[in-house]
């Protein structure tokens, strides 16, 4: 049996079996769940080689599944993060209602994401896309909060995106007579200009929704924060990357062939830039860690879109590398929030404080992830940021680089807010009972966190598959002049050699760690955080001295004009207007038989009057 189909059968069967096992007591469902994620992932890593395909016919369409170098990069994200989050989920979701439903959707999501990456034809791409959409939708509403607003909003946006994509697909089918992605790419340059413009726009709407591109992002904060955190890490880390995956194909293989296509890509890149800024600003404003991470994800996806949109080799590399990194660190951060929420019962940054001594390992994971997120060397986030800036500067995007830089500098604010809010600050008695999260939750986080470090020192590990992917997209081989195992270059040949830098940093750090920190730590003794210099006062046990309300208020006083308008409000207004309009159309059906009879007469009379126009 073909391994590709085997993977999907195991996923599907595993999902159903896990769901059914949910009716039984015991750990059968957990075991089945882990197995049905683990086995296909292992099969994927061991038995799937690039170029292997599997084809069949159904409903008059030819289907072809197989992995390409590009989708391999994304499949790495999906498989890796999916597996880690699955391990995490088993522990995180224990004792929740309807766990098997969660598992069911989780497996389906992983399956559909791999399916998207495996699809070489548009129909199965779309089918898996929709499965991904509704399984993720079910996860968004899983906890039953704000389902009629957040859930519906997510699904409407997804549906608009998916239907735009569907329209593009049928148009492509009518133009080429084939559903194969390859044949689309081949015949695209021959399309008329209108079609060349229409198809990418429609596809980009579809992909833009999933990758939370402005102005299609408004579903994201709610959806990311309402899903269970074990799922959100996949949601934000991997699922949003499906949009990026599609965008890469559209940008490189389609839009580049339009006359004047680089302007198109410029627009997309600018949209990405604005997304990055606004996502970051709103992230700073959030008090709920989930919302903060959700907006931060929007911002980070904005960077990726900028990289993909600019599309020079370095930019594309940075976009794809950041896609991988974002999966690692944002996956970790959502897991961290999940762990904290599980241990404390809330994820509000203004409530939870001072967990660092209670949950040190979680803090360590969060610290790594935040450093990677902020793009500070030597972790992997820096590599992607560096490549992004260099590529923007190298390709003369004067203003865009400033926009991006503003966004990533402002990102420090929410990075700090996240760490400070949860882990630092006063240790309140309210949280003195909090324990470290179970090992099954902590270990996946730490693995992901440490891998950001490894990729920071040896970016070549992941740049190698990215390079191969880019070669199939038509880029030149960049190994050697843009990157090596642990050195990255910009287009002018300036380099960052990660190894000496990292060794120096580690050296300095160890020196001060030994002679300052550990020595000092041993010589001194611990006092509670109530023992602070607060004008000679002795704070009472229950007095909360933590500074967490209006955390970045001065900053917001400065950027207030930027944040006065919310796209969300326009959408809400539009939706309300539509509902009012539809309420009016509803009244066409008056419920009065005479009116209905009159409609019939009017219908006949109109047809008879205008018969020559209508039937002429």
């Amino acid at each position: 049996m073909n391994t590709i189909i085997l993977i999907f059968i195991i996923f599907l069967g595993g999902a159903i079996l896990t769901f059914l096992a949910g009716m039984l007591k015991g750990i059968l469902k957990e075991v089945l769940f882990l197995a049905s994620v683990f086995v296909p992932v292992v099969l994927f890593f061991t038995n799937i080689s690039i170029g292997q395909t599997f084809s069949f016919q159904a409903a008059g369409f030819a289907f072809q599944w197989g992995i390409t170098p590009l989708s391999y990069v994304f499949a790495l994200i999906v498989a890796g993060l999916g597996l880690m989050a699955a391990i995490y989920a088993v522990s995180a979701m224990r004792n929740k209602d309807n766990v098997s439903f969660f598992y069911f959707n989780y497996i389906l999501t992983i399956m559909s994401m791999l399916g998207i990456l495996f699809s070489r034809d548009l129909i199965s791409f779309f089918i898996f896309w929709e499965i991904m959409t509704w399984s993720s939708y079910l996860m968004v509403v899983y906890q039953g909060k704000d389902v009629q607003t957040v859930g519906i909003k997510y699904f409407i946006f997804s549906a608009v995106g998916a239907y735009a994509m569907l329209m593009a697909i049928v148009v492509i089918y009518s133009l080429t007579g084939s559903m194969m992605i390859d044949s689309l790419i081949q015949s695209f340059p021959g399309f008329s200009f209108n079609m060349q413009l229409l198809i990418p726009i429609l596809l980009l709407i579809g992909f833009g929704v999933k990758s939370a591109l402005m102005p299609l992002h408004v579903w994201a904060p709610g959806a990311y924060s309402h899903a269970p955190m074990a799922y959100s890490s996949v949601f934000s880390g991997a699922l949003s990357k499906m949009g990026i995956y599609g965008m890469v194909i559209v940008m490189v293989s389609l839009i580049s062939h339009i006359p004047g296509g680089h302007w198109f890509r410029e627009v997309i890149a600018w949209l990405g830039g604005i997304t990055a800024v606004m996502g970051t600003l709103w992230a700073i404003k959030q008090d709920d860690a989930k919302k903060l991470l959700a907006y931060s994800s929007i911002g980070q996806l904005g960077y990726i879109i900028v990289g993909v949109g600019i599309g020079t080799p370095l930019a594309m590399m940075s976009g794809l590398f950041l896609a991988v990194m974002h999966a690692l660190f944002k996956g970790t951060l959502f897991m961290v929030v999940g762990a904290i929420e599980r241990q404390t019962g809330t994820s509000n940054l203004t409530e939870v404080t001072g967990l660092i001594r209670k949950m040190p390992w979680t803090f360590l994971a969060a610290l790594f992830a935040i450093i990677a997120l902020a793009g500070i060397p030597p972790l992997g986030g820096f590599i992607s940021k560096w490549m992004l800036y260099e590529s923007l500067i190298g390709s003369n995007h004067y203003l865009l680089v400033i926009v991006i830089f503003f966004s990533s500098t402002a990102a420090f604010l929410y990075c700090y807010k996240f760490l400070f809010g949860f882990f630092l600050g006063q240790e309140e008695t309210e949280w003195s009972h909090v324990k470290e999260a179970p090992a099954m939750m902590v270990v996946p986080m730490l693995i992901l966190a440490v891998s950001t470090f490894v990729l920071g020192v040896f970016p070549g590990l992941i740049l190698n598959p990215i390079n191969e992917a880019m070669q199939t997209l038509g880029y030149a081989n960049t190994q050697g002049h843009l990157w090596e195992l642990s050195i990255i270059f910009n287009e002018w040949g300036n380099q960052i050699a990660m190894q000496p830098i990292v060794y120096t940093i580690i050296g300095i750090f160890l020196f001060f760690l030994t002679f300052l920190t550990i020595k000092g730590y041993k010589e001194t003794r611990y006092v509670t955080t109530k023992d602070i210099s607060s004008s000679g006062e002795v704070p009472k046990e229950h007095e909360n001295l933590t500074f967490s309300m209006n955390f970045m208020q001065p900053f917001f006083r400065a950027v207030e004009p930027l944040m006065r308008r919310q796209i969300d409000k326009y959408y809400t207004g539009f939706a309300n207007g539509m509902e009012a309009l539809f309420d009016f159309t509803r009244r066409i059906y008056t419920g009065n038989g005479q009116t209905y009879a009159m409609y019939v007469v009017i219908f006949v009379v109109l047809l008879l009057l205008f018969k020559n126009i209508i039937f002429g």
Partner: protein
Amino acid sequence: MESIWYKILGAIITVIVAFIVGLTYMGLSRKITARIQNRKGPPFYQNFIDALKLASKTSAIHHGFMQHIGPAFMMITSIMSVLVVPVLTGDQWFSNLNFKGDLIFLLYIMVFGPLGMALGAGQTGNPNSAIGVTRGLSQMVGFEIPWVMALVALMMQYKTASIVDLINIQQEQGVWLMFSSPFAFIAAVLAMLGMFRYSPFDIVGAPTELASGPVSENGGKYLFTLMSSNSIFAFAKLTLYVDLFLGGASNIVELLIKTFAIYLIPMLYGTVSPRYRTEQAIKYFWGWPLFFGFLALLYAAIF
């Protein structure tokens, strides 16, 4: 193998030089400020005494491990930046990591320490620390923008991101970049006012309001570490300005003159200025400095 030891030795010497120069400059600034205020002022070596005293003070308590790592993070930033910035042009001894990192790297390693310090400050649980940190970070967002604009303008104009290359370009052309890219220089200098956190941008550690802000729970050795880190960092920043805009320095005297000349700008501006609130500071940086940044970008785009 031998070269690595030379490198390490060179690095240590660089750091020591940076430490001494930085502290001296700070002492001089106290002296000059005092003279401007018609005081006698402390001796220029006063900061060394302070440092020595701080180092000799004991510390009895801690609020957690992070509080003690903060200064270490700060040191990483300072030392890394001073190692990446070319101190003396063409000097083998002090080449350190000049070729391993470029401007973007420098920008990012420069925020590593403040963020680590912020974490340390956060763990003390002192609300003043956190307030100071938020102010500092907000202000950083303010001044980074014109600063980056200036750097981007330079990088675009001369098609390199390496500081060494920029020095070489200045030496080849025989013109300092402050003359050949004047707007970038102005923007960078205005940004520098915020970077050094002298008045009017010293709200971060406003002593009477915030009880010195982020460092309010740090005393003794930690304050000493932070102080030396600050001085090294200041030296690194000054050297960077000299390298970028004043053509670098080939010997130590030239370096000192140029760096001190640059140093006088934020210092003298600070002595005659009151204090901005955070949002005022941000708006200040997004006013004229931003305008000059745009001019610099325009200039770079045209030429």
